[in-house]
């Protein structure tokens, strides 16, 4: 009896965390599904049950689909630069003999990840600005006037300009994590490869890549999941414009709910974001679990 009481008392350690996460993370998630079946004006307080109407509207909404496409584009480009690019870069850095250079380069590349996406977004808003931004001036100076554009002001380039900023901001973070993973590879493995006379490229393919694949898998999932939650940089740089060409699901949710006062519709978008991110997380769990068994 005393043992049971004591074990139950032990729960006191986890109760604060459970309550916080339960009330402010899980509960809203459940409520959100309910809200997505309402037509709901938050200012007048009018609520009306409309069933799956919000979802059928969503599937017919071209801006929702272009937002989804932008998230997808974000994911693809980020995987190229922040997973594969970062892995290559980390391997390059770790191949440098001087410890001081290795550390300095890793630190320099990381700086943009320490500053906020708001500062980075504003900074690149000005970098891309046609009148005062250095980007167009630099293109003109080297005779590439063709690239003298209003990067954020036209539909064809705005999304790429935002994604470009985000690569600048984020690649150092994943490079740092890959560098740590590479440092954990036992040096005998590289030594053995060197004796066999294998060159650096083969060593990368046959030693580095297979031995950091757990990190590669994790970074891929984190990157995709992050790409479907993009919000800050788009809000700061274009707020979804011009002509909704840079809307992503997060900003479209915000605009639908908080600007167009259609909270049920916003909740429906939120449910879809939830389904997508949950799917990615499940895939991640499945992949890591399967690997553990293999080893």
């Amino acid at each position, binding site marked *: 009896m005393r043992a049971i009481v004591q074990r139950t008392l032990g729960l006191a350690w986890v109760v604060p965390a459970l309550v916080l996460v339960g009330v402010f*993370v899980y509960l809203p998630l459940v409520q959100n599904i309910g809200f997505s079946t309402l037509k709901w004006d938050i200012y007048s307080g009018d609520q009306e049950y409309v069933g799956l109407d919000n979802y059928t509207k969503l599937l017919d909404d071209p801006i929702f689909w272009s937002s989804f496409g932008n998230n997808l584009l974000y994911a693809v480009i980020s995987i190229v630069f922040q997973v594969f690019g970062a892995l290559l*870069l980390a391997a390059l850095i770790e191949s440098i003999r001087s410890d001081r250079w290795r550390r300095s380069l890793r630190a320099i590349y990381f700086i943009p990840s320490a500053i906020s996406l708001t500062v980075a977004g504003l900074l690149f808003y000005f970098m891309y600005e046609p009148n005062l931004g*250095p980007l167009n001036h630099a293109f003109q100076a080297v005779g590439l006037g063709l690239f003298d554009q209003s990067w954020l002001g036209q539909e064809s380039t705005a999304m790429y300009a935002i994604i470009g900023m985000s690569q600048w901001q984020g690649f150092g973070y994943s490079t740092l994590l890959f560098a*740590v993973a590479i440092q954990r590879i036992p040096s005998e493995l590289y030594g053995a490869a060197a004796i066999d006379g294998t060159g650096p490229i083969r060593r990368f393919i046959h030693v580095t890549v297979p031995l950091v694949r757990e990190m590669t898998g994790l970074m891929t999932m984190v990157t995709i999941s992050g790409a479907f939650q993009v919000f800050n940089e788009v809000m700061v740089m274009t707020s979804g414009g011009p002509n909704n060409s840079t809307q992503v699901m997060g900003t479209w949710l915000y605009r639908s709910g908080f600007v167009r006062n259609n909270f049920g519709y916003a909740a429906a978008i939120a449910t879809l974001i939830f389904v997508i991110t949950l799917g990615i997380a499940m895939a991640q769990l499945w992949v890591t679990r399967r690997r553990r068994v293999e080893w």
Partner: protein
Amino acid sequence: MVKRLSFLGVIARVFMWAFLLGLAVIVLYPLLWMVLNGFKTNAELFGNPFALPVDWSFTNYQKAWNRGVSDYLTTSVLVTVTSTIVTVFVSAWAAYGLTRVTIPFNKAITALILGGLMLAPTVALVPLVKMFQAMGLYNSFWALLILYTAFRVPFTTFLIRAYMIDLPREVDEAAEMDGAGRWTAFWRIILPMSKPIITSTVLLHVLFAWNEYLFAMVFTSGSGVQTLPVGLTSLMSKHGTDYPVVFAGMVIAAVPVVLLFFFGQRYIVKGLSDGIGK
């Protein structure tokens, strides 16, 4: 044959260094440009973007400070400090309970807390707004404190748990022999032993809270409760085209976290890689 290889090797090394240093320039130049612009006048800003400031005065910093940045900075510091303390303690308690104490439903509770890692803040946004309006906490410091804590407890618990799980069992047994209760064992023994991971999680939470934008934008308005990331965007929209002042504000927002990273880099990297490595 050997000669040719080493010649190729030299070429490869030259390319590698050109690439690595070129990338460093791409990273550093925009930051340098930002700092320089904080010292320029508006006319200089619209002139040659590559020019240096004529007069290195702190006028723009003063203006930024008086136009709200002092308020934003105060709020940011307050929110960051309080949410860091609460998050790290709540998470350390939870991690201790999950790893060193026999409690019922341990697996289910672990899954529930760590499962929060998978949930995006955007998904909970609409119900949270309604919830905080009902509680009367909308547009207040409390909204940010609560949200920053609740949404970071899963990640912070995840990192601390990975560390505490590896501390030797004998530590708890020795504490029990001394007649120390759980409470004393936590404060006197386990927490001090976990100092490296506590340091990492503090630094990671500070980076998060200082830079967070979504909740800060949706849950606060008016300069009394706005943090720097949101404050900067209002500085931009309120004061028209006095851009150098905005640059000064950006520098004020960026410098603390960049310094923090430089001094705490070792801990940040170690904490992340220890947690994720498991």
